[in-house]
C-alpha cells in the first residue's frame, strides 16, 4: 500500500500544482472584478461576471461560430479519416513511409499551419486561388460567409491524420475471425464494412470524435494567424473571444467566467452523450 501511494504521490502533487490549483484560482478570479491593469487586491463581485457573460450576445455568437466550426471540421475529418485508415490498413508496400508522411501534419505547430494557409490561400499572391482562376473559378477563401469554412478546412488538413491514427489503432485491434467468416460466406466488401467493421469500430469512433471535438473547441492559432476574428465577427471563436476579453481588454475576471461557462456547457454535452451511449448499449 505504501509503495502504491508513494509512487502515485509525485504525479498527484504535480497535477494539483499545474491543474488543480490554477483551476481553483480561476474560479476565484471569475467572482472578482480583477483587471490586469489594477493595483492591489481585486474585489469580490459575486455572480456579476457570469450575469454579464450570459447576457452578452457576442459571447453566444462566438459559441455558435465555434459549434459550426467543430461540426464541419470533425465531420469531414471523420469521413476522410475513416477512408484513409481503411486504405492504409491493407497497404503492404512502403508502409512506414506512407504512414509517417500522412501523419506529418499533426506534428506541425498550428501557428505555422495557419500562416502557411494564409499565404497559400491569399487572394492576390496565393497559389491555390491562382490555380482555381486557371480553371475559371474565382474564390476568395477569407471572404464573408467563407472564412469560417476555410478555417475548418485548415483544421481538416492538420487533424485528419489524428483521426487516421486512432482509427488505424482501432482497425488493427479488430479480431480477424468474424471478418474471415463473413468473407467465406460471400459478403460484399460494403456489407462486411457496414455490418461487421463499423459496429466493432464504434467505441473507437466515439473516442476519436470526442477527443477531436474537444480539441477543435480550443481553436485559436488559425484564427490568430489568418482572420483575427473577421470579416466582422464571423470567425470569432470562443477561445479567441476569451483571449481578447482577458488580454486585449484586460478583463481577467470576466474572461475567467466565460471560460467556466464554456467548461460547463462542454461537460454537459459530454455527460448527455455518454448517457445516450450507455442507453444504446443496453438497448
Amino acid at each position, binding site marked *: 500500500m505504501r509503495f502504491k501511494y508513494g509512487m*502515485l504521490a509525485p504525479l498527484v502533487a504535480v497535477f494539483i500544482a499545474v491543474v488543480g490549483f490554477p483551476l481553483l484560482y480561476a474560479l476565484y478570479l471569475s467572482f472578482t472584478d480583477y483587471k490586469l491593469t489594477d493595483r492591489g487586491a481585486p474585489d469580490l463581485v459575486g455572480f456579476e461576471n457570469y450575469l454579464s457573460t450570459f447576457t452578452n450576445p457576442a459571447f453566444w455568437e462566438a459559441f455558435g461560430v465555434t459549434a459550426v466550426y467543430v461540426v464541419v471540421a470533425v465531420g469531414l475529418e471523420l469521413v476522410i479519416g475513416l477512408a484513409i485508415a481503411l486504405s492504409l490498413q491493407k497497404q503492404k508496400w512502403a508502409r512506414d513511409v506512407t504512414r509517417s508522411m500522412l501523419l*506529418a501534419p499533426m506534428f506541425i505547430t498550428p501557428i505555422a499551419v495557419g500562416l502557411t494557409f*494564409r499565404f497559400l490561400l491569399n487572394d492576390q499572391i496565393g497559389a491555390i486561388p491562382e490555380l482555381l482562376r486557371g480553371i475559371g473559378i474565382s474564390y476568395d477563401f477569407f471572404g464573408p460567409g467563407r472564412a469560417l469554412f476555410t478555417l475548418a478546412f485548415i483544421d481538416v*488538413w492538420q487533424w485528419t491524420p489524428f483521426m487516421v491514427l486512432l482509427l488505424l489503432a482501432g482497425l488493427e485491434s479488430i479480431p480477424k475471425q468474424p471478418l474471415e467468416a463473413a468473407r467465406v460466406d460471400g459478403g460484399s466488401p460494403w456489407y462486411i464494412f457496414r455490418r461487421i467493421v463499423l459496429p466493432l469500430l464504434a467505441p473507437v469512433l466515439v473516442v476519436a470524435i470526442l477527443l477531436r471535438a474537444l480539441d477543435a473547441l480550443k481553436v485559436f492559432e488559425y484564427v490568430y494567424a489568418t482572420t483575427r476574428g473577421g470579416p466582422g465577427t464571423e470567425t470569432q471563436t470562443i477561445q479567441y473571444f476569451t483571449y481578447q476579453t482577458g488580454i486585449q481588454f484586460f478583463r481577467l475576471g470576466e474572461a475567467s467566467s466565460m471560460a467556466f461557462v464554456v467548461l460547463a456547457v462542454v461537460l454537459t454535452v459530454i455527460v448527455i452523450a455518454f448517457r445516450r451511449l450507455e442507453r444504446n448499449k443496453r438497448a
Partner: protein
Amino acid sequence: MRRVSALAVARIALLWAAAIFVLFPLIWIALASFKTPGQLNDPNLVLFSPTFESWQNVLSSGILDAAGRSAIVGLTTVAISVVVGSMGAYVIAKYRAGGTATRFGMLAAQVLPPAVLVFPFLTMAYALRLNDTLVPVIFAHLSFVLPVVTWFLIGFFEAVPRSLEEQARVDGFSRFGAFWRVVLPQVLPGIGAAAIFGFTLSWNDMFYGLILAPGKAAILPVAIAGFNTFRGVQLGSMSAAILIAVIPVVIASFFIQRKLVQGISGGAVKS
C-alpha cells in the same frame, strides 16, 4: 473479382490524393523560403534560381534563440512528465491505484479550455515577478503534457506481463527495484515514443507562450507569429522560420508513428 480490383484502385487513388494534399503546402513553403520578395508575389512561379536571403534574414533574427528556448521548455516539461508520469502510470496500471477516477481525472484535464488556466498562470507569474520568463510557460505546458504522457504510459505498462515482476520479486528485488530494474527497461521504447509526442505538444503550443512570455523569452511559435506582417520580405523569412519549426518534429514523427498507434490503442482505445 472486378469489384475487388475497383476497390483497390480507389484505395490507391485516395492515398495518392491524400499524399499530394499533405505535401503541397509543405513543398510550397519550402520553395517560398528560397524566393526573393518580388518572386513571392507571383503565384505562378515554380522554376526560379534560389536565393538564401530569407534564410540569412531569419537566422540573424534570433529565431534560433527562440528555438533553443522552445527546446528548453519542451525538454524540462517532458523530463518532469516522464519521471512523475511513469511512476504514477505504473501503479495505476498494475495496482489499480486511484481507480478509474485517477484515470479519467487525467483525461478530464484535456477538456479544460486553456483560457481557464492561463489567467491564473499569468497572475501568479506577475505576483512572483516571473512573467516573460520560461518558468510559467513550463508550468502551463505541464498541465497538458503530463496527462497525455501518463495516459500513454498506462497503456505501455499494462502490456508488460505480470509474471515478469513476480519473477523479479522472487529473485529478491524490492518493489521499487522490480519497477526500476525489470519493468522500466521493458517499456523504454514506449517511454521514448511518449516523450517525443509530449515534446511535440510542448514545441507546438503558442497560446500559453503568447500570453505568459510574449517578449524577450518568446518561444518558437510566438517568434514565428511575429513574422505575421505578411507583406514583402517577411513572407520569405516566415517560410524559413516555419521550416525550422517543422523539420525536427516531422523527422521525430517518422520514428514514433508505430509506437503511437500502440500507445493509443493501449491507453485510450481499450479502456
